[in-house]
């Protein structure tokens, strides 16, 4: 696992009531018993850690957030986009 993945798993564990050690890319978020506000906290922490913004609406089913791996992929692409974007004045 690369740094992005391990950092995200670390964040997930921080917000779980009973953190597990068997979380991998294929783990479904629904298996982690994450409630809606926990997800908001997780998104907040990920944004803060990677300096990105994750477009997400708690009212919608988020396809990007089905598995741990899908979150990692999304974050990776957002990091790439942010890095490639022209620097703001």
């Amino acid at each position, binding site marked *: 696992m690369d740094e992005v993945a391990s950092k995200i798993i670390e964040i997930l564990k921080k917000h779980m009531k009973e953190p597990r050690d068997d979380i991998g890319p294929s783990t479904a978020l629904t298996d982690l018993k994450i409630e809606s*506000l926990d997800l908001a906290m997780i998104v907040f922490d990920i*944004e803060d850690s990677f300096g990105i913004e994750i477009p997400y609406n708690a009212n919608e089913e988020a396809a990007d957030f089905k598995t741990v791996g899908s979150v990692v992929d999304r974050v990776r692409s957002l990091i790439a986009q942010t890095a490639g974007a022209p620097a703001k004045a």
Partner: protein
Amino acid sequence: MTGSGGLRRVVVTGLGAVTPIGNTVPEFWAALRRAQVGVGPLSIPLEDLKIQIAAEVKDFDARGRLKDFKRDKVVPFADRYALFAAAAAGEAVTMSGLQTPFQDPYRAACIIGSGGAGLVAVEDAYRDLFIKKRKATNPLTLIRIIGSSAAAHVGIEFGVKGPVFATCSACSTAAHAIGIGRDFIRHGLVDVAITGAAEAVITYGTMRAWQAMHVLSPQGIFPFAKKRNGTVLGEGAGILVLESLAHAKARGATILAELVGFGMTADSKDMVNPDTEGPTEAMRIALDDAELAPSDIDYLNAHGTATAINDINETEAIKKVFGAHANKLAISSTKSMHGHPLGAGGGIEAVACIKAMRENWVPPTAGLDEPGEGCDLDYVPNVGREQRVTYTMSNSFAFGGLNAVLIFGPPPV
């Protein structure tokens, strides 16, 4: 178990407090006994604050205090004010001996207000956005800010499914919550109510707002004294568990007091300057409601904020209501010790009133060396007093001219 008009009698079976001079009821009462003053230098960053004192709650360990709560999320989800409310409500419910979650949850109410609600969360969020330039506020910010969050947290914890909401009337918030809770029980809507208020206003932004009003004292809070020059902000929570007399008796509860009278009025005049008529009528209505004569009241816990105008205005109002008995009445402002906890004041002071009745001891007005002009009643200066205390009155008079008065009596025999 009904009074006149077939209305149900309402008793107090639990008390809870978090105050700048004690984080539980026994600690608070012991501090009042010692005339301990909870005012000190501010612990928040002082920056350019002109007023550098407050009565802060000290060493409040939310996690330790709420360790028996079933929901581990209360602490991260709650603003400081709601944590005070939860701690005080936990103490009050434990004291009441009520089984929770309530067996008949729709017959229970939870009415816990706040004057300012989640101001600590507001300040944290704004500092993140405006100073630290963070991209977002903490996602729990909104949940922490909302003014009904204390009532909701406590209601969820104890399984209350009847009326759950907050009151908001500045310094009368707790008294309104307690009075409304009593009326819900009195009229048969519910059998049990967790009532009161909490406040946590000691932030840089709030201090600046108060500073701009020029009503805070840079030295201390000296109600009814010649040297008084403003109030001192406090914080905390005061919670009562109320029950119908029948409900309390049926379960063999220890009844601490009866809530016999409630009066509320509004001056309908000015946002900041109090009038004598509104407070006078609130006290009269409460006495009528209690079916008591003014001379029945032994101890009056005054609003007593130590502003120039409140103390003289309240003294005038007391004279109008009590006539000759005004000179025999033991009056004190416990704000001289716990500071002015705004909305929570009426709850904390109700606890003081009930303890005064239980122990036949009247708390003093600390720091009263020389009375101010026109402040010529018996304010129990500096040293508390052993005396028979059968009926007590608690005054709350708020900005906006919003007045609420509670009267407590002995447990019905």
